[in-house]
């Protein structure tokens, strides 16, 4: 299965600022997925990122708040813009595995907004 490197692993940010999270995969993948996991909650899909096209956002998430880049088949970034304390969450990227390996997840970025 794919191996995902996600950076940073954690950060504490001031409200009103932006943070860009990077996700690097060790193999080429068509789709990459960005999730948010709020404290004590399960995973909620933010958007699906395809290389060469605009990301597809889920209901409740907008491009101005969570711009995504997908410059090639192994890399993607998610930016959390104009942050508020409500954005404090774990953000995870994911790719579809092959055969029976399911979807693989990065180790996550723990974001705290103060």
């Amino acid at each position, binding site marked *: *299965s794919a191996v995902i490197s*996600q950076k940073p692993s954690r950060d504490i940010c001031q409200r009103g600022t932006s943070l860009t999270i990077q996700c690097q995969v060790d193999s080429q993948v068509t*789709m990459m*997925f960005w999730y948010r996991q709020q404290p004590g*909650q*399960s*995973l*909620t*899909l933010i958007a*699906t990122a395809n290389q060469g096209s605009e990301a597809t956002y889920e209901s409740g998430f907008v491009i101005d708040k969570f711009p995504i880049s997908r410059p090639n088949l192994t890399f993607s970034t998610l930016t959390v813009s104009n942050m508020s304390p409500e954005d404090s969450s774990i953000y*995870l990227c994911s790719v*579809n*595995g092959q055969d*029976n*390996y*399911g*979807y*693989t*997840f*990065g*180790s*996550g970025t*723990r974001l705290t907004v103060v």
Partner: protein
Amino acid sequence: EDQVTQSPEALRLQEGESSSLNCSYTVSGLRGLFWYRQDPGKGPEFLFTLYSAGEEKEKERLKATLTKKESFLHITAPKPEDSATYLCAVQASSASKIIFGSGTRLSIRP
């Protein structure tokens, strides 16, 4: 609308006490049902994929089963290191994304 419901929300067991976690789902054509384990501060770790009713998969003390409406994750003689949150997710046949349930927090006491 596709939906995944997990129960119980939390489960505390004594070491060696077997039990089952439930995942009920509603989906417009099931492409796959996934079980993950998540430890605090880490991303979900893939356990199983089930594709059709009647299918079963095993890994160490864990066994996952699937019917047309639900999946069970059976834990046999659990150990403290099995303590984690177990997440269930489904993928509809027409979708590329997967939808997660709220998870079951499992705690195994020595």
